[in-house]
């Protein structure tokens, strides 16, 4: 079957996109480029969801992450100013020690994770939208409603936080 040959290659390309984009976000000092490479990471991740057979999630990923969140972050970048020293917040003198600690935690997790679950699939992939929709609107109907309230609260909160105080209005409030 040709798909069996193509799938590992596609997975390799996508994982290079995901990890390379992630490294670039951390390493690049130009924030606009970092944001665009973050979009590359998200796009590769959507490809991985397609490989896993979760097409609906891949569509959401493209719409929400690649579309909305990247654009929001780019707006945030444009509204603020760059800094000359992008790195070294905590690890200023402790860099070697920090690298040792990170390796001590990260390497076992990656190795154990990749060894422990080296099995084949339990079932073939397929369209996941009916199952997803059934779950969301039956068992998870209440969390779904809570999530919509959370989104509304976040929307109102973001507007309140970024609203510029009208000077006359503020003066009127002080007089009251």
């Amino acid at each position, binding site marked *: 079957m040709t798909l*069996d040959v193509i*799938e590992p290659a596609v*997975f390799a390309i996508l994982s290079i996109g995901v*990890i390379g984009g*992630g490294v670039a*976000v*951390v390493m690049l000092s130009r*924030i606009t480029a*970092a944001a665009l490479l*973050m979009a590359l990471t*998200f796009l590769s*991740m959507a490809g991985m*969801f397609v*490989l*896993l*057979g*979760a097409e609906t*999630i891949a569509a959401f*990923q493209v719409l*929400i*992450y690649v579309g*909305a*969140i990247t654009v*929001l*972050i780019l*707006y*945030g970048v444009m509204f*603020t100013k760059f*800094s000359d020293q*992008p*790195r*070294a*917040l*905590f*690890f200023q003198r402790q860099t070697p020690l920090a690298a040792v600690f*990170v390796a001590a935690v990260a390497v076992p*997790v*990656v190795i154990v*994770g*990749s*060894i422990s*679950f*080296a*099995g*084949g*699939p339990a079932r073939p992939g397929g369209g996941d939208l009916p*199952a997803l929709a*059934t779950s*969301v609107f039956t068992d*998870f109907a209440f*969390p779904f409603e809570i*999530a919509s309230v*959370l*989104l509304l609260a*976040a929307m109102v*909160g*973001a*507007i309140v*936080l*970024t609203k510029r105080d009208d000077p006359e209005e503020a003066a009127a409030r002080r007089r009251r």
Partner: protein
Amino acid sequence: MTVPLGAYVAVSAVLFFIGCAGVLVRRNAVVILMCVELMLNAANLALVAFSRKYGSIDERGSVFVVFVFVIAAAEVAVGLGIILSAYRNRPVVNVDEIHQMKG
């Protein structure tokens, strides 16, 4: 699915640690927000991969991913709002230079 589940878990773990390192190392608040998004996305990949392998027919893992999307969108909106309002008071975006909220 010829790619083993372990490969997806490994990519997810690597991306999570990259995001974690970014949150700890970078100073720009917007970049820290981006790295948090990377971590959330890594968790999404692990959720979908495990749902494919072990999940029942009703896609529980994908449902959690949908909720993570909602949380991520809300977090970016509120986080950028906080960054912009802090930036308006004093034009700095580096988190170690924002002293106003220190008690």
